[in-house]
């Protein structure tokens, strides 16, 4: 059950890399004087460089795609993060204007798939009217999706109804869940970022759907509360991301649970089955607590709360809050009720599990040995099948491996040379120690390789559960290192990130 990003599909089958060159030259038309309520809905063309984690020293693979955006304020166009992620050049095109306008990203929020872009020259857009935001539409009410999807060059309109309002995974990051609204209006590649309108007000931003083979007429839009939260968050000029309680809960459905926990049989309370120590609730909640209420909303046995007469995931109480905000929670611990306060913050370790964008891959290369921090991008690019690496990746959060290894460093490849000839079979292993230094981050590897352990004659790399240390004679390795870089065309021995 994989949701396909419209943009990704579009880039792969409709837009050739240099589509702009082939675009038919049209005669400039005079812009119509009559105001068009949809003139603020624009097409966004993006050129990308997609980093290849197998050759992290390279700039990446060029690609292109397009989506939709719309004017939300003065020279501010809102669109999906996935439309503009990894972009090297952005162009805005208007429906009735042949001129391409260069643009740039101002804010990008990968956790809710939203971005704000700005035209380099604001002038052409000064007269355009921003679209207005509406509210959450009711089930089975009509709406239209407007944008520039596949099937033609000009603006397209499709019509449908609100099918469902629920929490959904946002597939851009692959790890975030927020409120989303399902619609049955046709939403196709290229619609991404476009407004979904009801009574001429924006009630959502089209962003993802199921591919035809899984389900029919299932499109999703980002609803107004999520859009508004994003716009609120960036008011101070900085995006601070979503907060997360970082806990897991287990429904209380069994009468024995009620009895054992000493709970009243009133439908209230959900069992806390895991608390991430690095999360906002770490040190406040503990396994075995029962959450009775969150900011005054009763929490039901299935972990839902009631908001505006709708039953919705209790995380909704956290969704509208910002970093540093406080949350009050009524809990049941040791058969006593108490109230605790949680100061909200991001849960950073989870980022390892998600797709990363707009980042140059980090690496250290030494004597042909390529070290990289574990991430979803890395696992996919290298196609790592090693059961241990996969186990560590899958359990990075729930076994809190991040406490011992904030970055899990993987020996991802060995560029063959005489000096490392016997080490080829050790790629796709986790690096535990280098020259006696426990490896907790990629930088540790870079530092430790320079350290002379013992008499300094050998470089000793211990891999997790790989039954022998990898040993390089320093003298030989130092000599081979520049040679290998030259042979394999590696311009820099490492990239540790922007300092």
């Amino acid at each position, binding site marked *: 059950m994989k949701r396909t990003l419209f943009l990704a599909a579009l880039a792969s089958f409709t837009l050739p890399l240099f589509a702009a060159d082939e675009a038919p030259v049209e005669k400039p038309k005079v812009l119509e004087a009559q105001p068009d309520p949809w003139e603020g809905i624009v097409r966004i063309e993006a050129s990308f460089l997609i980093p290849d984690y197998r050759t992290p020293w390279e700039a990446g693979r060029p690609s292109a795609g397009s989506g939709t955006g719309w004017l939300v304020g003065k020279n501010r166009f809102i669109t999906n993060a996935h439309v503009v992620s990894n972009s090297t050049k952005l162009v805005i095109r208007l429906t009735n204007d042949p001129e391409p306008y260069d643009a740039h990203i101002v804010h990008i929020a990968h956790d809710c798939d939203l971005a704000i872009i700005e035209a380099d020259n604001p002038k052409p857009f000064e007269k355009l009217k921003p679209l207005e935001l509406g509210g959450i539409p009711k089930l089975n009410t009509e709406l239209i999706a407007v944008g520039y999807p596949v099937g033609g060059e000009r603006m397209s309109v499709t019509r449908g109804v609100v099918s469902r309002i629920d929490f959904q995974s946002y597939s851009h990051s692959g790890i975030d869940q927020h409120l989303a609204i399902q619609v049955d209006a046709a939403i196709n590649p290229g619609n991404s970022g476009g407004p979904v309108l009801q009574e001429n007000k924006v009630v959502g931003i089209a962003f993802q759907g199921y591919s035809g083979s899984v389900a029919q007429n299932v499109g999703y839009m980002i609803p107004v509360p999520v859009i508004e939260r994003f716009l609120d968050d960036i008011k101070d000029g900085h995006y601070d991301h979503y907060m997360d309680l970082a806990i897991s809960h287990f429904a209380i459905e069994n009468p*024995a649970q009620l*009895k054992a926990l000493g709970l009243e049989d009133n439908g209230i309370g959900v069992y806390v089955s895991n608390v991430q120590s690095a999360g906002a609730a770490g040190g406040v909640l503990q*396994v075995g607590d029962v959450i009775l209420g969150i900011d005054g909303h009763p929490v039901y046995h299935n972990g839902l709360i009631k908001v505006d007469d709708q039953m919705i995931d209790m995380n909704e109480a956290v969704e509208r809050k910002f970093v540093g905000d406080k949350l009050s929670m009524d809990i049941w611990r040791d058969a006593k009720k108490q109230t605790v306060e949680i100061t909200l913050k991001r849960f950073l370790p989870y980022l390892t599990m998600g797709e990363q964008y707009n980042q140059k891959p980090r690496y250290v290369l030494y004597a042909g040995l390529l070290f990289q921090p574990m991430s979803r991008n890395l696992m996919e690019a290298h196609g790592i099948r090693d059961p241990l690496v996969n186990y560590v990746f899958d359990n990075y959060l729930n076994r809190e491996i991040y406490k011992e290894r904030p970055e899990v460093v993987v020996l991802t490849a060995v560029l063959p040379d005489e000096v490392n000839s*016997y080490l080829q079979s050790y790629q796709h292993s986790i690096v535990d120690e280098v020259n006696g230094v426990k490896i907790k981050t990629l930088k540790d590897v870079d530092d430790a390789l320079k350290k002379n352990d013992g008499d300094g004659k050998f470089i000793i790399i211990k891999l997790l559960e790989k*039954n022998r240390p990898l040993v390089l004679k320093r003298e030989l390795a130092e000599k081979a290192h520049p040679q290998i870089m030259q042979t394999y065309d590696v311009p820099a021995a490492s990239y540790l990130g922007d300092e």
Partner: protein
Amino acid sequence: MKPFALTLTALALLCGLSLGESKPKAAPKDEATEITVPIIGTAKNTSLMKVNVTYQPWNYRIPWQKTPPSARRGLGVLLDNNRILVTAQMVGDATFIELEQADGGRRLPAKVKAVDYEANLALLEPARDPDGFFAGLKPISVDTSVRVNDELQTWQINPTGEVDITTLKVNKVKTAHYVLDSSMFIVYEAVGLIRSETNSFTLPVIKNGKLVGLLLRYDSKNQTTSVLPGPIIEHFLKDVADNNYQGFPSLGVEYQQTLDTQFREYLGMSNQQHGVYISAVTKGGSAESIGVKEGDIVLEMNGQKVNERGDYKDPQFGTLNMSHIVRGKCFVGDELKVKVLREGKEQLLVGKLTRKNPKDFLVWPYLFDRGGNYLVMGGMIFQELSLPYLQSFGDEWETQAPLRLAYVAKHTDDYEKAGRKKLVYLGATLPTKSTQGYERLGGLIITKVNDKDINDLSDLNNAFKDPKDGIHKIEFEDFPKVVYLDALTAERDNLKLIDGVYHIGSLKRIE
């Protein structure tokens, strides 16, 4: 690396055998390329008989159930005292074994006298008075003198009851897995064509009228066969003779080659020193008991020099893996002498060889002729972790089985140190009144029940006798960490599970 799967497929070509739950796919039949095999001769049968086995493996995921019965047909070799030798694969999970005269068709029920699933050998004996069944047959003796380049024969029974003879030539002798991934033994690798006849499983391999091995697998594409060799058969028979079968001893180490010159220099090995780097020592194995440690370099074993690949020069077979020094030549209780290089100094470690009993492993390495241990409470199915359970998820079980269970199967140290004897886990949960809300739970390792540590299924059985205030508290390693069962409701559900739709014959098996 799927030697077991390979065995199955190869054997399927011969006789359509299936073993365990993973059914081998039928090999695509290519009529055009089928070759008629030159049969070098036909002879009167003197020592072979047909062996018909009905077998019925247990279902490892629904542990009170068995899978549908199937049949295996093969050949048995008559040894002295009316004993019949077959491979252990023939008789695994057997429910009925019958001997059949090759020509006359007369039948005689038989039973297993001794079996070793690691060495893949079994001895059968008549289940009742043979009443002249063996008249006209003469026992064959075992010969261990085969060398590389020897010509051998395979014997098969043709439809008229006579023996068809084809030839094989021994190509090399090496160590390989038989049926279980965990044990390595020597095999003769031989080249030659073998025609697929019915009843051709467990073909005897003969030299000068003596038994030198049993056919283990045949790769029809490359026309190579692996033969379970005479020395292993002899070892098995000697061990059986004293009526106290001990099995083959094992060393219990993992080692790494020392070809890497930089690694050798780091280890302080001189150019003259050979041997392998010990990367792990099995808990409860022979090597551990005589003091071999991780990081040692094994230079010699029982006087034989070990090279940097882990091989030694066998006087009879040539270059062979060092495991044969222990496996093929020694018995449990024999002396083991290992010369190691430790911190630059040579040391001689001496002690007795042992064998780690399958019962002593944290995770059952194999289960034959029995099902897995289990206990049902209220609908929750608790089991002791076994490799067959994990393998029931298919060839890709390492990624297809519940991940945590697949992981711990290979990482048992911490549990063993913590005093666990077996790993008890919740396999699955049947929906009942008492398990309301827990239906989706499965693949979870149990830590405590009713505040008692659970080190094996007997502990669990005892812990369930002691609910607090009528409630069982069950603690898991992972999500959801703790669940509660109403003791009385669970007991009522137990009764319903026995009589109701699930027909659970027994609520537990703890053997």
